[in-house]
């Protein structure tokens, strides 16, 4: 197998970089004047690439979970997440590019750029090439989300790893997994391994169904039902920030069967068990913090645990359709033993993952965005408003975030060729350290994304697992030189 070298950087948009892309069928109205891309790159000095295109899927509105993200985007908050697959063999970048160009036509709702309207952001069709780019040490940095002509996702490759970095404006973990599975299926199909297409893996030659880009939130909103009860603000990790455009990734891998067995011992599911360990780790860090000595002045520890709403409300959408539970422990009441935390988390998650309770939040989100008084506010003002809402109704309410994407469900045909799958979330200055979990075959991968120097939370989390008798293998992208991390560590 020939290995194509990974391009050091994507080709400049002004160069004709479309050798690998398959020819698109010509569309009515464009044939006479030549293809839009030919005109786009015909050598005229055009500094902005104006829309030349209005065929099918010309534009989309943002779904009701996505509308908050464009407002909060900054150098420090990217609202991206990353799903990466580590293969057994080296990645063939040429094949991957061919696979990407074939597969992405099947997902027109991802081939878009973010645009500003007068009242809301919207997503407009993007006809630029989307080259596979080389991975970097600090993923998900310097993104093109708000730039004209930039995609809201990108495929990166390095060595044996294929990574999908995708913005939450486009989709959630479930939608991103379908895209990544379809991409991998096409990549392996080009190598002669055939995969059955279905619900989890889309056929690149198939036709997108309108239900794939529906805003399922609107469908399940029930006007008139009471709003959810708003929680109190939660404790946040202390810590000095890492330099801009860097982040630390710490990934721990465990044997899935062992963890499941351990969770069963506590009478919990995998998500409940890991969330309980996370809360216990947060408690360890809080206990060790010198300014948290007075228990009465503490704030509760609360964890956001997202859930895939497709499990509760039938939908096949590839847009966002997830909400969360907020299990918490109030350490003002005293130290929680691990078993107490498990009991509490299990009960709280059972209560939260109830279609009736979830409908409250769905309805609140949808009805707020549909309120005519909010709709007529110009976008610039709305952005300011949304940033404060994100703080007061979002980050302030929970200490951290731990999402369990569940099983990667790669098709049998090539799942043996993939060693490991990870999901990485870049943190925000508010939450500082967050975690993403995913299982592939017999391996559970838990990745922490952090923007602070301290590794206390990661350390507390993994040492708790080790003390519970589990074998954990840890790796990191080593943001600081060895020794630097422990300089400010709280935990001894």
């Amino acid at each position, binding site marked *: 197998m020939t290995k194509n070298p990974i391009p*050091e*950087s*994507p*080709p*400049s*948009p002004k160069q004709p970089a479309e050798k690998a892309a398959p020819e698109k069928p010509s569309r009515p109205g464009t044939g006479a004047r030549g293809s839009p891309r030919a005109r786009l790159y015909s050598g005229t000095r055009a*500094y902005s690439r104006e829309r030349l295109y209005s065929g099918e899927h010309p534009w989309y509105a943002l779904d009701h979970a996505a509308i908050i993200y464009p407002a909060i985007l900054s150098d420090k908050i990217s609202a991206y997440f990353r799903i990466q697959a580590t293969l057994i063999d080296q990645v063939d970048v040429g094949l991957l590019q061919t696979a990407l160009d074939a597969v992405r036509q099947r997902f027109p709702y991802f081939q878009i750029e973010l645009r500003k309207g007068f009242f809301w952001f919207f997503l407009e069709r993007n006809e630029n090439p989307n080259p596979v*780019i*080389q*991975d*970097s*040490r*600090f*993923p998900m*940095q*310097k*993104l*093109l989300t708000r*730039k004209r002509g*930039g995609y809201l996702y*990108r495929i990166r490759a*390095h*060595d044996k790893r294929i990574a999908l970095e995708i913005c939450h404006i486009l989709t959630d973990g479930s939608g991103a997994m379908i895209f990544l599975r379809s991409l991998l299926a096409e990549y392996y199909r080009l190598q002669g391994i055939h995969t059955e297409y279905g619900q989890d893996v889309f056929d690149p030659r198939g036709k997108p169904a309108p239900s794939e880009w529906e805003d399922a939130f609107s469908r399940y909103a029930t006007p008139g039902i009471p709003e959810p009860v708003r929680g109190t603000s939660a404790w946040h990790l202390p810590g000095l920030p890492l330099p801009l*455009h860097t982040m630390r*990734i*710490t*990934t*721990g891998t465990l044997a899935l069967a062992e963890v499941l067995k351990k969770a069963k011992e506590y009478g919990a599911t995998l998500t409940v068990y890991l969330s309980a360990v996370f809360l216990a780790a947060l408690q360890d860090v809080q206990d060790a913090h010198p300014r948290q000595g007075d228990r009465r002045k503490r704030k509760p520890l609360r964890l956001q645990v997202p859930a895939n709403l497709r499990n509760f409300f039938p939908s096949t959408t590839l847009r966002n359709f997830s909400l969360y539970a907020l299990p918490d422990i109030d350490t003002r009441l005293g130290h929680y033993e691990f078993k107490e935390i498990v009991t509490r988390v299990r009960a709280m998650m059972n209560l939260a993952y109830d279609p009736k309770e979830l409908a409250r939040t769905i309805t609140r989100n949808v009805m707020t965005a549909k309120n005519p008084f909010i709709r007529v506010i110009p976008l610039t003002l709305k952005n300011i408003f949304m940033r404060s809402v994100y703080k007061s109704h979002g980050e302030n309410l929970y200490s951290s975030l731990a999402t369990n994407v569940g099983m990667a469900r790669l098709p049998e045909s090539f799942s043996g060729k993939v060693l490991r799958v990870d999901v990485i979330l870049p943190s925000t200055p508010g939450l500082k350290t967050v975690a993403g979990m995913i299982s592939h075959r017999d391996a559970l991968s838990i990745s922490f994304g952090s923007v602070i120097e301290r*590794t206390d939370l*990661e*350390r507390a989390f*993994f*040492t708790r697992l*080790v*003390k519970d008798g589990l*074998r*954990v*293998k*840890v*790796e*990191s*992208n*080593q943001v600081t030189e*060895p*020794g*630097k*991390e*422990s300089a400010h*560590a709280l935990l001894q």
Partner: protein
Amino acid sequence: MPYCSKCGVEVDDGVAACPLCSTPIQNLDALVRKPENNPYPQHIIDPEDAYSLSKAERRRIGVELLTLAVALASAALFLVDLLSHTSLSWSRYAVASVVLGWIMAVAPNVLYGRKKAALAIMAMSVIAYLLVLDGLDGQLDWSLTLGAPIALTSFMIAAATVEIMVTRRIKGINLLGIGALALATFLIALESILRIGLGTSVRPYWSLVAALALVPVAVFLFYLHGRVLRGADLRKIFRL
């Protein structure tokens, strides 16, 4: 598999320290860290860097936009003037100013990296502007006797001052002294030009008074610099 003795977690072969607590990891098999074991590449390449316009492109776009704006503004001024007067009157003055502004903005971009050439062109265009303003009514009244000499003298003195300041080895409070001396020289030159231009008595008067005040200040500053504050950085003293 190597593991951290403090945290109990396992790590890859060849990892020097625990990713969680930085405790050095004893490794009997491989004492040398193998670079291929890094889970992430060690370089930092982000597509953003390649997509953005280069600085030269930004300058070119800036020049293009400025030129277009100036051309449109000049055309509009001429047209408005023509509509109301049927001949060009006041608009010539306005357009001359707009063109001067255009040269001032465009020269540093076109002659990027050639600071002296850009400054020379800007200085010459100011003098030309004065001549044009004066000469638009058909005769030169003040520009040759006053405007151009004053502008030329101030540019030359400013250039000389900057040159002297730049060549000082220690840049401290002595720069203020040089500035004071330059100001005194400029005032004397200014008064001389004014007197020659207006045809009054050639002997300077008020500028000497000013110079008498400035020169002792400069001497005092040189003394301060040489004896008291030697080497003190101006940026330190006058930090905002």
